[in-house]
C-alpha cells in the first residue's frame, strides 16, 4: 500500500491540470466529477493507507518519486514521508477538503467560472498535501508557496470586484514577508547541515547544537516568522480578515481548516530545533497568547459574519501556538484537528446562510433563522458549542481544556499564559454566541431565498458529528483517560511531562474552564437576547463606542501598517517614479545618439571625403608603426 503514497497529492494535481486545460469546454457534470472525484479518491487512498498504518504501525512510510535536481552535492528528491503527524494532517486535508468540495458543487452552482474554481481548489489540496507529506524542506517550501498561490487565486476569485483583488494582493504580500524569513531560515539550515532532509536535520541538530545555541535560536525565529505569516498571527495577521473576500468554501478550506494551520505544522515538524531554542519557544507561546486575545476582542465587534469567523480563526490558531510554545505538541495538533472540524463547519453554515439570504453577510440584517433553516441552525449551534468549548458534549472543550491545563501543569507552564488562555476562552464564548443569537434569534429581517439541498446538508451533518465526537479520542486522565491521539503522535512528537503536584487540581481547573465558557454564553445571552437595554446603554457610552471602533478596525493594525509602511513606500515610489538609476541609462542612450548624429554627419555621400578618410587612416596607421 505504501507505494500508493504518491497518488494522494498526484490525484488533486491531475484534477487541477485537467480542469485548467479543458475546464471551460467540459460540461458541468464532468467538471464536478473531476473536481470532487479527484479529492474523493485521494481521501479513499488516505483511508486505506491510514488503516494499514494503524494495523502495521511502522515508524513511517517513505517513498521517493524522483530526484528533483542535483547541483553541487545538493540533491533534494521529490519524496514523500508519512508519519503520524503527516497522517493527521492529510486526513484533515483530504476528508474536510472532500466535504468542502461536495459543498461547493451547490454553493458555486451558478457561478460562470465553475471549472476555474474547482481547478484552483484541487491545486490547493494537492499543494497542501505536498506541504505536509514532503520529506525535505525544499519540497515543503514548494507546497508552502503553492498554497500561498492558490490562496491568492481564490481570494481574488471574483476578480471583477476591485476590493477582492486588493484583498488577494494583501494576503499574498503579507505572507510573503514571513516566507522570506522562512527561506532565509532554510538557507541557514542548509549551510549548517548540507541538506534539507527533515529526518536528517532532526537527528543531527541535537548533536550539532547545544541548547540555546545561537544558530538554532536564529533559525527557530526565522522559521517562526514563516509560520506567523502563514498562520495569521501577530504581527502579520491583518491579511486574514480581508481574505474573506473569497467564496465561503474557500474561507472554510483554506482560511480556517488547512492552509492557515501550515504554521502549526511547520513548528511541530521542526520541533527539534524549537526545543533547542527555548527563547523561540517562549516567543511562540507569547505570540499565541497575545494574538488570541487581540483577535478575540476584534471578533467581538465585527458585524460581518465571515469576519467574526476569520478573527476567531486567528484566535484559535493563537491557542495552537500557545500549546506548541509550552511544548504541548500533541495538544496543539489535536486542537488543530478539532478546530478544522468545527471551524469548517461554522464557515460552511455561514455560507449556507449567506446563500439563503442572497449574499447578505451583515449580522445586523439577519435574525430569526432558527425556524427557517433548521439544519443549518442545529449544525451551527454544534459548531458554536465546540468553538465556545461547552463542557462535556463538545470536542472543542477537550482540546482547549488540554491546552489550558498544560499551560499551568506543563513543565514550561506559566500562570500568565494560562490566564491569557482563560480570558481568551471567555471572550470566545461571548463572540461565538453573540453570533448565534444575532443570526438565528430575534425577528427575521431578510427574506430567505435558497433552501440548502443535500450537497450542503450532508457535509454540515458529517462535520457536526465530528465536532461532537472528535474530542472523545483524547480525554483528560481524571475523566475517562483516553489518550488515543497523543499515543498515536508520541513516536513523532515528544510528550510533555506534567508537574505531578498539579494533578489533584485538575478537576478544579476543568470546572473553572467550564464556568468561564458557560458564563460567557450567559453574558452573550443577556446582552444580545434578553436585555436589549444593556446593549443600548453600551452604545450610548462614548468610551465603549471608542473601544468598539478600535476593535472593529482590528486594533488599528491596518492603519498602523498603512502609515508606517505603505504610505512611505508609496511616497518613495512616487518620488522615484522616473527611476533615479535609470537616468544613467538614459544618459548612455543620449550619448549613443549624440555619437550617432556625429558619425552620420560624417557620411556626406561625397566620394572625395571618403578617400580623404582612408588617407587619414593610412597616415595614422603608418605613424603608429613608425613610432612604436
Amino acid at each position, binding site marked *: 500500500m505504501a507505494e500508493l503514497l504518491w497518488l494522494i497529492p498526484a490525484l488533486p494535481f491531475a484534477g487541477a491540470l485537467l480542469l485548467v486545460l479543458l475546464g471551460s469546454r467540459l460540461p458541468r457534470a464532468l467538471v464536478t466529477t473531476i473536481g470532487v472525484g479527484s479529492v474523493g479518491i485521494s481521501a479513499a487512498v488516505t483511508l486505506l493507507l491510514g488503516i494499514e498504518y494503524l494495523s502495521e504501525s511502522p515508524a513511517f512510510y517513505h517513498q521517493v518519486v524522483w530526484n528533483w535536481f542535483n547541483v553541487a552535492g545538493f540533491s533534494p528528491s521529490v519524496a514523500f514521508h508519512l508519519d503520524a503527524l503527516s497522517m493527521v494532517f492529510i486526513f484533515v486535508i483530504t476528508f474536510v477538503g472532500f466535504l468542502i468540495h461536495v459543498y461547493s458543487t451547490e454553493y458555486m452552482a451558478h457561478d460562470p467560472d465553475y471549472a476555474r474554481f474547482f481547478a484552483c481548489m484541487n491545486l490547493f489540496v494537492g499543494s497542501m498535501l505536498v506541504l505536509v507529506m514532503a520529506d525535505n524542506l525544499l519540497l515543503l517550501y514548494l507546497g508552502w508557496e503553492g498554497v500561498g498561490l492558490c490562496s491568492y487565486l481564490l481570494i481574488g476569485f471574483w476578480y471583477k470586484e476591485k476590493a477582492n483583488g486588493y484583498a488577494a494582493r494583501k494576503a499574498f504580500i503579507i505572507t510573503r514577508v514571513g516566507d522570506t524569513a522562512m527561506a532565509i531560515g532554510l538557507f541557514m539550515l542548509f549551510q549548517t547541515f548540507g541538506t534539507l532532509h527533515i529526518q536528517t536535520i532532526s537527528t543531527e541538530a541535537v548533536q550539532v547544537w547545544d541548547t540555546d545555541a545561537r544558530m538554532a535560536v536564529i533559525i527557530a525565529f526565522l522559521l517562526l516568522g514563516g509560520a506567523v505569516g502563514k498562520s495569521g498571527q501577530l504581527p502579520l495577521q491583518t491579511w486574514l480578515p480581508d481574505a474573506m473576500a473569497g467564496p465561503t468554501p474557500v474561507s472554510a478550506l483554506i482560511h480556517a481548516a488547512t492552509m492557515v494551520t501550515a504554521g502549526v505544522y511547520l513548528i511541530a515538524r521542526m520541533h527539534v530545533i524549537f526545543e533547542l531554542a527555548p527563547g523561540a519557544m517562549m516567543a511562540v507561546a507569547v505570540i499565541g497568547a497575545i494574538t488570541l486575545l487581540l483577535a478575540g476582542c476584534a471578533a467581538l465587534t465585527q458585524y460581518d459574519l465571515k469576519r467574526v469567523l476569520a478573527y476567531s480563526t486567528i484566535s484559535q490558531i493563537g491557542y495552537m501556538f500557545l500549546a506548541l510554545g509550552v511544548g504541548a505538541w500533541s495538544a496543539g495538533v489535536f486542537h488543530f484537528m478539532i478546530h478544522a472540524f468545527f471551524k469548517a463547519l461554522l464557515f460552511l453554515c455561514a455560507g449556507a446562510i449567506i446563500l439563503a439570504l442572497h449574499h447578505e453577510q451583515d449580522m445586523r440584517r439577519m435574525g430569526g433563522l432558527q425556524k427557517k433553516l433548521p439544519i443549518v441552525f442545529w449544525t451551527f449551534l454544534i459548531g458554536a458549542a465546540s468553538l465556545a468549548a461547552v463542557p462535556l458534549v463538545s470536542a472543542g472543550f477537550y482540546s482547549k481544556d488540554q491546552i489550558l491545563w498544560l499551560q499551568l501543569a506543563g513543565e514550561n507552564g506559566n500562570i500568565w499564559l494560562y490566564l491569557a488562555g482563560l480570558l481568551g476562552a471567555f471572550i470566545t464564548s461571548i463572540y461565538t454566541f453573540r453570533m448565534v443569537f444575532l443570526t438565528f434569534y430575534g425577528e427575521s429581517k431578510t427574506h430567505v431565498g435558497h433552501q440548502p439541498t443535500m450537497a450542503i446538508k450532508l457535509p454540515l451533518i458529517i462535520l457536526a458529528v465530528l465536532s461532537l465526537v472528535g474530542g472523545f479520542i483524547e480525554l483528560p486522565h481524571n475523566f475517562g483517560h483516553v489518550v488515543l491521539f497523543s499515543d498515536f503522535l508520541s513516536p513523532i512528537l515528544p510528550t510533555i511531562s506534567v508537574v505531578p503536584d498539579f494533578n489533584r487540581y485538575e478537576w478544579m481547573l476543568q470546572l473553572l474552564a467550564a464556568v468561564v465558557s458557560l458564563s460567557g454564553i450567559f453574558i452573550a445571552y443577556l446582552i444580545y437576547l434578553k436585555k436589549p437595554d444593556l446593549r443600548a446603554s453600551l452604545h450610548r457610552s462614548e468610551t465603549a463606542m471608542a473601544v468598539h471602533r478600535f476593535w472593529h478596525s482590528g486594533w488599528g493594525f491596518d492603519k498602523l501598517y498603512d502609515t508606517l509602511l505603505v504610505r512611505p513606500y508609496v511616497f518613495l515610489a512616487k518620488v522615484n517614479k522616473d527611476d533615479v538609476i535609470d537616468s544613467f541609462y538614459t544618459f548612455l542612450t543620449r550619448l549613443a545618439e549624440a555619437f550617432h548624429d556625429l558619425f552620420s554627419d560624417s557620411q556626406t555621400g561625397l566620394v572625395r571625403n571618403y578617400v*580623404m578618410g582612408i588617407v*587619414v587612416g593610412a597616415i595614422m596607421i603608418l*605613424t603608429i608603426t613608425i613610432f612604436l
Partner: protein
Amino acid sequence: MEATFYIAGAVAVIATLLVVMSYNLIHALLYLVVSFLAVAVVFFTLGAPFMAALEIIIYAGAIVVLIIFVIMMLNLTYEDVQQEKSWLKPSVWIGPAILSLVLLAELVYLVVAVEAPGTVSVSVEAAAVGMALYGPYMLGVQLCGILLMAGIVGAYHLGRQKKKIVHRFLERRAAS
C-alpha cells in the same frame, strides 16, 4: 643604365603631375600615356622587359583607349573644360596636399630607414616568370581569369541601356 632610370623617372613624375593638373580630359589622357611609357622604360631599366611590354600594351594601349572611347560616347564640350577649371580652385588643393605630403614623408622615411639598402641586382627572365605563374601561382591565375570574366559580365550588364533601370534612391528623389 642608371641615368636612363633617373631620366625616365623624372619624365614619369612630371607627366603624372601634368595629368593631375590639366583641365582637358584628352590632354590629361595623352600625358597619362607619356607617364605609362616612362614607367615602362623604368621597368626596362629594372630588368623586367616583359613587364615593360605589358605596361605599354595594356595600360598605354587598352585601358587608355577604352577611356577615350567612353569620352567620345559622352560627347564632352568646351563647357566641361570650363567647369573642370572652376572645380579645381586652389583652395581645394590645400587639405589633400598636406595629407599627401605627410604620407609621402612617412613613405620616404620608411624607405630610407631600412637597413642595408641594396641595389637592383639581376634581371629576371620572362621564362622564369612564366614558370612561376603556371607553377605555384596557378590558383592566382585562375582567380584572375574569374575576375576578368566577372569584369566582362559586369560591364555588359551595367553598360546595357535598353531598359531603364532606375535605382530606388533615384526613384525616391524623383518622387519628392
